């Protein structure tokens, strides 16, 4: 075969360029320490690395979220510790008062002490981290507690905003990183608060601390996907009512789960069927909606795990009882108008009815003795509140003619109830912090694993690159040398 000179040169240039390109490429790989520099180097590896880097960004964010929950948890831990100390101090005051050993000066001093405790608790309730009031629930940009001149404390977060904010702590999983002021300073058990001015010195008993759910012909219907579901009439607890609703829904299609959370007194409808469902709360015929705490807005519940939760607490009902003369009392519901007379210890529910209904919610009040019950004595039945309890103590201490040591004797247990709330919340925070520790470890492991895969996929093996570079350098030099030699071999050189 004839070898033309131009072809010799072209071939040399072609090979020279190939080797030079490879050398440049290896140099770039070594400088960046990456095997894959651009998508075309390894399209699949590059795409995987983009996906994994995106995942890594998610894990970084989850780490920050976990840190946020941890930070809040530590703040709550400190707050609850202080609250426990303050309530212990209040208990000490109450015990001293119950012993009847306080003279007027000590009593006045005790009042100041309790007032200070209330002020400190309000300050704790209004703790701020960053721009977040930690007990503000979803209304976290304004102070949740307001101290009034009479040392009553208002929790001013709207009911729909009481629940704490959630945050993603894992892919698809959220955790509450704030604790509602309602959960920190109140609980959902009904308690009797007596006026310090009462003449009555005896005890009172509530038949239950929970409210009943009474289903009758006026509130027994739920609409699902446009079809009415009729609940069996009767008196239920939250849990049994949830069970009844679940049974009725599953009669239409299996896969519904209805639960009741006693700590929030809310119902949750979970849809574990394979189809989306609509709970038609806006349908005027959906009469059970209000009792179950749902506002009149239809909810589409997604298939395979979607859920809809009560918009409001279903058990905030409170009663005011005032003793009349002649063995009767009158009552009001939620601060409404006073009722007619109801016989004291008549064996009926609070409204005098012999059956639980939507008004009395199954609540009955019994006085251990009627001795000393005086016209004008008043009692409130409502959810337990640390502030309410302390104000009650403060009012008792303030009035030298008040119920006096009797309150303290009978109500020290109420301070213990407050301490129980704190213990429960402290345990919750502790568990949460442990969970965060575990999640941090798991997240770090995932981050490391992702980083390793990215590294294995994308990073360069420097030893291998150095070897390749060395080989190519030799080839490069050989190429130049051989071309020079080939050119020297021309006839022209022999003729010189």
């Amino acid at each position: 075969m004839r070898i033309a000179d131009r072809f010799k040169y072209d071939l040399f240039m072609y090979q020279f360029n190939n080797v030079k390109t490879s050398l440049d490429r290896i140099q770039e790989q070594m400088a960046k320490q990456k095997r894959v520099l651009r998508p075309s180097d390894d399209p699949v590896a590059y795409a995987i690395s983009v996906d994994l880097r995106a995942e890594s960004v998610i894990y970084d964010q989850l780490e920050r979220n976990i840190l946020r929950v941890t930070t809040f948890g530590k703040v709550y831990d400190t707050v609850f510790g202080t609250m426990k100390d303050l309530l212990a101090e209040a208990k000490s005051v109450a015990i001293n008062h119950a012993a009847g050993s306080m003279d007027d000066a000590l009593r006045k001093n005790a009042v100041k002490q309790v007032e200070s405790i209330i002020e400190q608790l309000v300050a704790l309730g209004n703790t701020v981290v960053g721009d977040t009031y930690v007990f503000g629930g979803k209304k976290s940009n304004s102070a949740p507690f307001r101290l009034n001149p009479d040392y009553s404390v208002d929790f001013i977060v709207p009911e729909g905003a009481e629940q704490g904010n959630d945050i993603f702590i894992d892919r698809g999983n959220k955790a509450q990183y704030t604790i509602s002021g309602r959960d920190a300073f109140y609980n959902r058990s009904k308690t009797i608060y007596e006026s310090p001015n009462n003449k009555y010195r005896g005890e009172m008993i509530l038949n239950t601390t929970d409210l009943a759910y009474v289903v009758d012909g006026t509130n027994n219907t739920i609409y699902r996907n446009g079809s009415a579901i009729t609940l069996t009439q009767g008196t239920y607890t939250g849990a049994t009512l949830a069970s009844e609703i679940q049974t009725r829904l599953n009669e239409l299609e299996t896969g519904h789960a209805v639960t009741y959370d006693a700590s929030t007194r809310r119902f949750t409808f979970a849809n574990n069927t394979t189809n989306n469902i609509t709970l038609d709360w806006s349908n005027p015929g959906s009469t059970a909606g209000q009792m179950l705490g749902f506002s009149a807005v239809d909810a589409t519940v997604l298939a395979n795990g979607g859920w809809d939760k009560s918009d409001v607490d279903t058990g905030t009902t409170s009663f005011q009882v005032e003793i009349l003369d002649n063995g009767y009392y009158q009552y009001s519901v939620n601060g409404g108008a006073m009722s007619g007379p109801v016989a004291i210890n008549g064996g009926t529910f609070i409204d005098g009815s012999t059956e639980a209904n939507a008004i009395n919610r199954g609540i009955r009040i019994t006085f251990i003795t009627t001795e000393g019950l005086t016209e004008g004595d008043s009692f409130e039945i409502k959810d337990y509140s640390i502030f309410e309890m302390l104000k009650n103590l403060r009012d008792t201490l303030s009035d030298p003619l008040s119920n006096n040591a009797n309150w303290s004797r009978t109500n020290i247990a109420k301070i213990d109830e407050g301490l129980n709330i704190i213990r429960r919340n402290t345990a919750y925070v502790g568990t949460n912090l442990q969970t965060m520790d575990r999640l941090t470890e798991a997240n770090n492991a995932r981050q490391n694993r992702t980083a390793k895969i990215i590294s294995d996929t994308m990073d360069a093996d420097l030893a291998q690159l150095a070897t390749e570079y060395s080989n190519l350098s030799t080839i490069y030099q050989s190429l130049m040398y051989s071309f020079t030699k080939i050119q020297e071999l021309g006839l022209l050189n022999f003729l010189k």
Partner: protein
Amino acid sequence: MSIASILNIAKSAMFAQQASIQISANNIANVNTKGYCRLDPDLREAPLIPTDYGLLGNGVEIAGLVRYFDKFLEATIAQRNTDLQEQKTAVAYFERIESILSEDSSNLATNVMEFFNGWHELSADPANLTRRSNLAAKGANLARTIRNLYAELSGLQRELDQQVQREVDEINRLTASIADLNGKIIALGSSSQSEASDYLNQRTELLKELSGKIKITSFEDENGGLTILTENGSALVDRTRSWKLQTQFNSDTGFRMIAWNDGTGNLSDITNKISSGRVKAILDMRDKYLGNGFIADLNNLAGTIITEVNNLHKEGYGLNGTDKVPFFQETTTDFARDMDLSMQIKEDVRYIAAALSSDDYSGNDNALRIASLIDTDVVIDGQNTRFSTFISTIMNNIGGLTKAAQQLSEHEESSMKIMEQQRESRSGVSIDEELAKLMKYQYAYQAAARLISVADEMFQTMLGVGR
């Protein structure tokens, strides 16, 4: 037979060898000339002269020039060049698109992730104005990234459109030149004539260049005139006549289409009939890979982000109690081009709707819903996918296309090298060979000169006899 005839023989030999040296010199001079076909003298014995002793030789003559040219090989090279140029063009543009879209330069996936992380950050402190500003900045950054990518890709698309015009102009120049060369070759009588060699070389090179642009069919008539047709049979050159291609704007796309002008002003659109070559690569790049490809992907991505985020955002409440406010400016078609924060969000970050209830403007439920989009399947261009997966698919596509084009281009180049080797083996100049020939001709020339000297001596001897 006379001494003078010896001189004649010597003279013809000197002329022939001198001409041969000139041909070799020309070959050497064109050793690096692209498309040059080496020439050799066609030396033949001069017509014999009848003598008493029979027919005696009368020296040498150059019957013509031998042009080392393989018509079929050149045709194959021209055809192969169509595919080679298509792949080389594709590689050049794919590499540019790759450099634009590559995550290392665009940070597209990172910015999408950072944007949704901004919602995560906000969910951790929804009333915090710094976090709101940070989220707005991340949203603006994402919008800017997508707008910039769109601008770069659409800029490249416009450049390709202008390139279509340049290629058409170039094709017209080539066909006109080929027609002109046809005229010169035909005028010389035959393509095999030695005088036409230069024109033939030029025409071969132009044909190769033309075939690199679009796929063509060509054939030569008996007079050396070349006819060139497009693959759908439209004539580009017929002997001395050439037909022009023209561009015309498509009113739907706003881009240039290619039409064949029949010479009377009637145009027929041949855009979709061009199946290979550089022009095909440019058209595909402009319409298929950019227009309906990466630009559309970017637009779909931007459209889905805008729609998904806005749909959720409008259901929420800002810190100032307002609802139904979009986060991104609402557009209906050119999402990527126009992506930007809404006026309200630009004006005041309190409009960012982190809350889902009118009871709690500082809630974070809506922020969580939007943040969860980072890890949720959404519908982008009819596919259920996550944002990061969609972007990695874009990276995979451009990487795959670039790599495939690179591999095809390498393959074509390698094939071309083999054919060029064959061509050079046949037509190329070897200096060694030419030097050997030079020596051969030089010695022959010297011998012929020596013959004159001998004849001269013979004349002198003969003249000396009479003295």
